[in-house]
């Protein structure tokens, strides 16, 4: 190059162009033309901002504190926005509710924001079809209909159903409705446990008290899934994990219920009572029922119940929570609350004063059901729905969708297609919560602020602003709306006004209160369900909300479809869960179809054998099986179609209210699961230690397989036959034949120290950046992670955070299969071939219970790239696409990868994922980010191409960002200055990341814990991930029987 340019300078002559130069120019321009001519891609222009908006620096993120609206709780989130697009949500550390954590549903709010099926703008029904209209036209139609309704005297019969939320908006909405002479709105949350809310109001005076697990010594949950969807999941999980991690005072946890949910799997003991017999347990605990009677009613052995009753009586303080959606839910919840009161738990472990306000003012499904009757009778003049989807979330038997057709005019403010909105006559799509202003009051005395993190993706408008603009044009209401928009309205209302609000916005929370304490809404006459035992059928039917998809809200978010259910590990599919022994007696293998018939209808589903089922029970998750909610939501079936419309006495839907006739249907459907074998086979992957051993500093029992023969179910759908009947011998942590050895931290092992491996020449002075004294300092570091299994609940928030942070494609949609003669079709087809791409997965292993008893232990192991110091993947890659970085990272170079996949074959942890298709190429059917889902992609992370390997990078982009920031600020990295996406979101605080070579980082201290171990340590991989054993709390040995 340089010689060329010198030549050029020499040949430039004053008297015009020389021949040689002319040829050069000719050559260059020809080449340039040719290359441009060859370019197949459209030429696009990158134009920088001429005048850059405030706070926008290209390539640098801006963070906005706002409030999550994915469930009723109202957690605080921080939205990371890059170049005007929100790319990641993190929990707000200053928020009293979630304290920096964020659950999977919260993470997936982004896929709601960028949902490809969102309405692009307002729509109106013309000649029976929904068509795009302008906002002016839409608002005019809306105003006209409002006017008509009022002028005909039908205003009193108008109904507004709003997705339940706390904060100022409900009050604002009611005032607006009142201005038009309409009744107050119905605040609807199909996923909430209305019986418990009613019982809490009655017993404690608040809708949802804070549960202080730290103060308790025994936690008894009677079907209350406080780690799944029951109440404010994130703060409950934070408190629970904190309580359990403090081993000195950790409470024992007993779960009672017909199905072992995620909460149940985190319990130390599971009592598998019959559905509908929970009351017998509570009465037994209260001493109102003899143990034998309770045993008779519940189907649990008297000895177990006796021990349970004694332990409960002997342990204070405790927590008793009840839930589970039975027809007698209110009575059970009241009785459980009475137990708490009699044991003196209220105030010590149950704190009504610090309760969550997110569940106040909720309308019960009974109100909607009574609305159905009114609609059918023609008593509703105008129906307005915002966010809620009663046509889907109410049992089909209640007939909401049919009744809707009788309403003269229906307005939906939903931003997404759903079953209710598709029946509407006018759609005025709302902003996503990340695009609009608002507030919430999650706990008394704290205002959680909601602000837009970016400009709207589509031509939507905030419903609050729509209401204001309609009211301003209405002579009767205009005077009450002097403010141009809802934001101004909020500012005026905010204590301290604009100045205070601006000061509070960066933190996202402010002290103060917006609402008066509310009282319970009156419950209309309920259609109470009959006791379940009186219905006919051969099995009890249990419906439960899916932990991610919930009542169906998350169904069109591919992350939530793709991340396997924490319990069943099913994705993209609806299955009927059955106890293995029951399935065996009916001749059903995994995937065999069964007909499930109830009074309301029948459904054909594949069977999944799940040992956490009461033997007479069949369970189905709700939320899937949408007909009209977008492309991803079509997967699965909706079990609400076969649920009779019964209610508990608080007006909530009785999800466990009927028996069903279950018969073998013939036929087979592949089970879409990510589970291989659910047993460890003695490999010491998920280890545990009993609390007594931990306290006594004994090595304790452990690891792998407890003994005896396994029940046939355990594996996934295609469990190798040999595994099923094999009785592995008992053994300890070491592989047989190993010399007993001390735990090797491995984080600073000789191998890790010298990334060249054992072959590296110790005397060499030319180690380059691997030299600890190299100026870059990289060789001094060893990035590492600890995962505390005594904290981990298996909720999979980390998985969703990883999907969001690392641009991981979802692969389970039915159009992502090969186009020519695919041998597997339908939703989850790629996952049937185990092609899911999740860089971190939660393995759920069972220990014990091989005889099919309820007495088994579930262990959750988050598994990601272990960043081995002596990595098996590195030497086998022929092209150095994976190599060892000086700071201990095992690095994957996508550009260099040719796709031999040898690295994956040689990885004992199986944490490498291959791009079988061009998931990142828009022109392909396998494209995982259809516009505008691709707006969410993290610009710091490559979207991987077809045919390359990928894996967990320990969020290398965050490491480098922090390092660069420190360099720019001319300071060393501060301990715990940053963390990975999974660790940041973890609502159990189980994952800790940092520099294990520096004692000041928390990870270094945690790795020294007595419970620390490496997975497959015997392979000498020197991993950088340290697991801390789960701590088990076995039942105390009763005095006198030892």
């Amino acid at each position: 190059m340089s010689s060329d340019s010198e030549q050029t300078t020499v040949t430039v002559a004053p008297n015009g162009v020389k021949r040689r130069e002319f040829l050069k120019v000719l050559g260059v321009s020809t080449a340039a033309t040719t290359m441009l001519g060859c370019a197949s891609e459209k030429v696009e222009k990158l134009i920088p901002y001429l005048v850059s908006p405030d706070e926008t620096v290209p390539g640098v993120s801006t963070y906005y504190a706002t409030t999550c609206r994915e469930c009723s709780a109202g957690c605080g989130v921080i939205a990371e926005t890059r170049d005007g697009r929100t790319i990641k949500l993190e929990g707000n550390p200053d928020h009293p509710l979630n304290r920096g954590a964020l659950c999977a549903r919260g993470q997936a709010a982004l896929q709601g924001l960028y949902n490809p099926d969102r309405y692009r703008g307002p729509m109106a029904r013309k000649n029976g079809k929904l068509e795009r209209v302008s906002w002016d036209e839409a608002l005019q139609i809306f105003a006209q209909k409002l006017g008509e309704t009022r002028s005909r005297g039908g205003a009193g019969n108008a109904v507004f159903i709003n997705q339940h939320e706390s904060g100022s908006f409900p009050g604002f909405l009611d005032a607006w409705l009142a201005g038009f002479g309409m009744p107050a709105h119905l605040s609807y949350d199909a996923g909430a446990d209305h019986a418990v809310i009613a019982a809490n109001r009655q017993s404690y005076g608040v809708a949802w008290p804070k549960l202080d697990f730290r103060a308790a010594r025994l936690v008894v949950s009677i079907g209350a899934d406080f780690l799944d969807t029951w109440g404010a999941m994130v703060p409950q999980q934070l408190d629970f994990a904190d309580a359990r991690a403090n081993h000195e005072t950790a409470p024992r946890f007993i779960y009672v219920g017909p199905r072992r949910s995620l909460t149940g799997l985190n319990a130390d003991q599971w009592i598998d009572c019959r559905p509908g017999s929970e009351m017998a347990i509570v009465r037994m605990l209260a001493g109102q029922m003899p143990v034998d009677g309770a045993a008779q009613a519940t189907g649990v052995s008297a000895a177990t119940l006796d021990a349970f009753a004694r332990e409960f009586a002997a342990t204070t303080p405790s927590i008793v929570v009840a839930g589970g959606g039975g027809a007698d839910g209110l009575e059970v919840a009241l009785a459980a609350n009475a137990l708490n009161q009699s044991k003196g738990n209220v105030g010590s472990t149950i704190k009504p004063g610090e309760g969550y306000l997110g569940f106040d003012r909720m309308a019960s499904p009974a109100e909607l059901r009574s609305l159905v009757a009114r609609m059918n009778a023609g008593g509703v003049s105008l129906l307005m729905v915002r966010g809620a989807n009663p046509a889907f979330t109410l049992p089909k038997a209640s007939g909401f969708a049919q009744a809707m057709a009788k309403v003269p005019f229906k307005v939906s403010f939903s931003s997404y297609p759903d079953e209710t909105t598709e029946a509407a006559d006018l759609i005025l799509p709302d902003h996503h919560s990340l695009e609009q202003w608002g507030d919430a009051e999650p706990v008394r005395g704290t205002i959680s602020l909601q602000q837009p993190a970016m400009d709207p993706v589509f031509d939507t408008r905030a419903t609050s602003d729509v209401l204001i603009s309609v009211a301003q044009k209405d002579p009767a209401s205009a005077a009450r709306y002097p403010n141009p928009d809802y934001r101004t309205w909020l500012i005026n209302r905010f204590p301290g006004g604009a100045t205070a609000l601006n000061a509070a916005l960066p933190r996202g929370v402010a002290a103060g209160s917006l609402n008066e304490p509310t009282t319970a809404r009156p419950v209309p006459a309920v259609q109470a369900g009959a006791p379940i035992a009186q219905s006919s059928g051969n099995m009890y039917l249990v419906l439960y909300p899916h932990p991610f998809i919930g009542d169906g809200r998350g169904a069109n978010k591919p992350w939530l479809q793709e991340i396997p259910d924490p319990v069943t590990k099913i994705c993209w599919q609806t299955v009927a869960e059955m106890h293995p022994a029951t399935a065996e007696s009916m001749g059903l293998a995994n995937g065999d179809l069964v007909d499930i018939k109830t009074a309301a209808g029948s459904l054909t589903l594949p069977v999944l054998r799940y040992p956490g089922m009461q033997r007479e029970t069949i369970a189905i998750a709700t939320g899937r099986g949408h007909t009209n909610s977008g492309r991803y939501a079509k997967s699965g079936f909706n079990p609400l179609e076969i649920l009779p419309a019964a209610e508990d006495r608080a007006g909530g839907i009785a999800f466990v209210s009927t028996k069903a006739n279950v018969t073998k249907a013939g036929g087979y459907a592949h089970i879409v699961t990510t589970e291989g074998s659910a047993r460890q086979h003695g490999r010491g992957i998920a280890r545990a230690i009993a609390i007594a051993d931990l306290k006594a500093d004994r090595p304790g029992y452990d690891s792998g397989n407890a003994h005896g023969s396994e029940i046939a179910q355990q594996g996934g759908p295609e469990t190798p036959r040999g595994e099923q009947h094999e009785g592995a011998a008992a053994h300890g942590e070491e592989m047989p034949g190993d010399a007993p050895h001390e735990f090797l931290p491995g984080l600073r092992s000789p191998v890790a120290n010298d990334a060249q491996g054992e072959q590296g020449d110790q005397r060499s002075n030319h180690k380059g950046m691997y030299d600890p004294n190299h100026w870059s300092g990289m060789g001094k570091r060893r990035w590492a992670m600890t995962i505390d299994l005594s904290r981990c609940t298996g909720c999979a928030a980390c998985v969703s955070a990883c999907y969001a942070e690392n641009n991981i494609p979802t692969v389970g949609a039915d159009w992502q299969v090969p186009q020519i003669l695919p041998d597997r079709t339908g939703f989850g087809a790629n996952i049937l071939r185990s092609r899911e791409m999740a860089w971190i997965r939660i393995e759920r292993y069972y220990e014990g219970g091989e005889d099919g008893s309820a007495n088994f232990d579930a262990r959750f192991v988050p598994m990601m790239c272990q960043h081995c110091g002596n990595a098996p993947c590195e030497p086998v890659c022929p092209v150095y696409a994976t190599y060892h970085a000086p700071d201990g990272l095992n690095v994957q170079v996508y550009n260099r990868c040719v796709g031999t996949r040898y690295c994956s074959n040689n990885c004992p942890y199986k944490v490498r994922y291959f791009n079988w298709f061009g998931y990142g190429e828009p022109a392909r059917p396998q494209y995982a980010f259809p516009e505008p889902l691709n707006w969410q992609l993290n610009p710091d992370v490559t979207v991987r191409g077809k045919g390359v390997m990928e894996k967990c990078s320990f969020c290398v982009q965050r490491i480098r960002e922090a390092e660069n920031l420190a360099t720019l600020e001319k300071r060393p990295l501060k301990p715990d200055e940053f963390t990975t996406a999974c660790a940041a979101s973890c609502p159990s605080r189980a994952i800790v990341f940092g520099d294990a070579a520096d004692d000041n980082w928390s990870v270094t201290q945690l790795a020294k814990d007595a419970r620390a171990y490496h997975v497959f340590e015997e392979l000498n991989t020197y991993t950088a991930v340290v697991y801390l054993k789960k701590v088990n709390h076995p039942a105390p040995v009763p005095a006198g029987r030892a």
Partner: protein
Amino acid sequence: MAIASRPLPPRDEPRRPNLARADIQLPAVRDYEQVDREIVGTLRPTLYWFIGLGVAVFFLLIGISAWMYQIYTGLGVAGYNPPVMWGVYIITFVFWIGIGHAGTLISAILYLFRAGFRTTIYRCAEAMTVFAVMTAALFPILHLGRPWKFFWLIPYPNWRYIWPQFKSPLVWDVFAILTYFTISSTFLFIGLIPDIAVLRDRENISPIRKRVFSVLSLGWRNTDSEWRHFARAYLFLAAFSTPLVLSVHSVVSFDFAMALTPGWHTTIFPPYFVAGAIFSGMGMVFTIIIPLRKWFGLRHYVTINHLDAAAKLCLFTSLVVGCAYMSEWFVAWYSGNEAEQQFFANRIWGQWWWASAILYTCNMVLPLTLFVQKLRRSAAWLFIISFTINIGMWFERFVIVVPSLSHEFEPWQWTSYRPTWVDYAILCGSFGWFSMWFMLFIKQLPVIAIAEVKEIVPPKLKTAHAHGVDPSGRHFEFEPDTPGEFA
């Protein structure tokens, strides 16, 4: 060249130690003219040959189409089921590489061991080797996620100073395959030189063909000095190829043995793979030579004695392979390594029991029938056995690759595997590719080494010199066959 070129020596002459019975008898071949006529006569294309070639090309086209589809859409169209990251392509790669080994064994090692029965089958086997390696070499490229970047595995000088990872067995594979292809094709070509000269010197040959053969025969004039040089070169190449027979498949076995994976991580793999390779190659030799000798009317060249001797070799390698299988079981049990034990239990009784059953039946049980002389001397039975050997050896590689990967350390990631139509199409395509080359070969070049056969055919007696004299001074009835005989 051919060693045994005389009738039985007189009783009092010390016997050459490793002279097989079969090697001295081509009783139906009388003279050089007959050899030329009959072997060169096979080169005339027939209708059936055109049909055969058409079928081969058809299968090849199926394979090519499937590959193009796979390149365009991504490897996902094949049946991979992570963590089973290798599947039919790697199985078939090892299968073809293994097939190649018999050819080199027959042409090089048996040459050094002076096993005379190789004379009539070695050309065929050697061509099979070259084409099998050409087929096998496609698969490592074919199975790449980004096949257009395959040259990154080759250490070529580049501006960025990036070299391959020399610790990786896959890089060793590149060298092994390229070396093997170079040597075996050279060996095939050198052996062909005198035969090409024969073809060149035919009458009624087209001028183009004559020109090509002239170039290829390197101006061979059948002089004594040419024969001397030729024989030395042949001997040298045979000695050079011999270690390759052992090393190439050892390197291929390192692809597995160097990994941690249970079922792969074992030191027995190199000898086990070499024995298996020779075994499978012998099977393929039978599959090819038995129909050829029938269709080309060459049964009096490739006699039943030759087949009998080759069958003994086949039986021997089957026993070696069987021994290796049993050592694997023993070591798995004796190691006390749980992962290894569970893997072997799964291999035999688990979801892959049928594949193991095919493997053990075809490779250990059925070849035992070759202990029976009657069956060994039955071309029909050998043809059947050759098919079961081919199937069994393909399944041996299947059992090594798939069950190991589907049943590794991490039980959560235990999976299954099922190939798709793309896998099968490319497998068929590989047979089409191999057969196409072989079809073209048998009508262009002699499938039986003319020059070597001539060495063992008694020459016409010459009146001027009625008998030969051996070094001890004894007289022979016939003229000794000096050319090529270990000059």
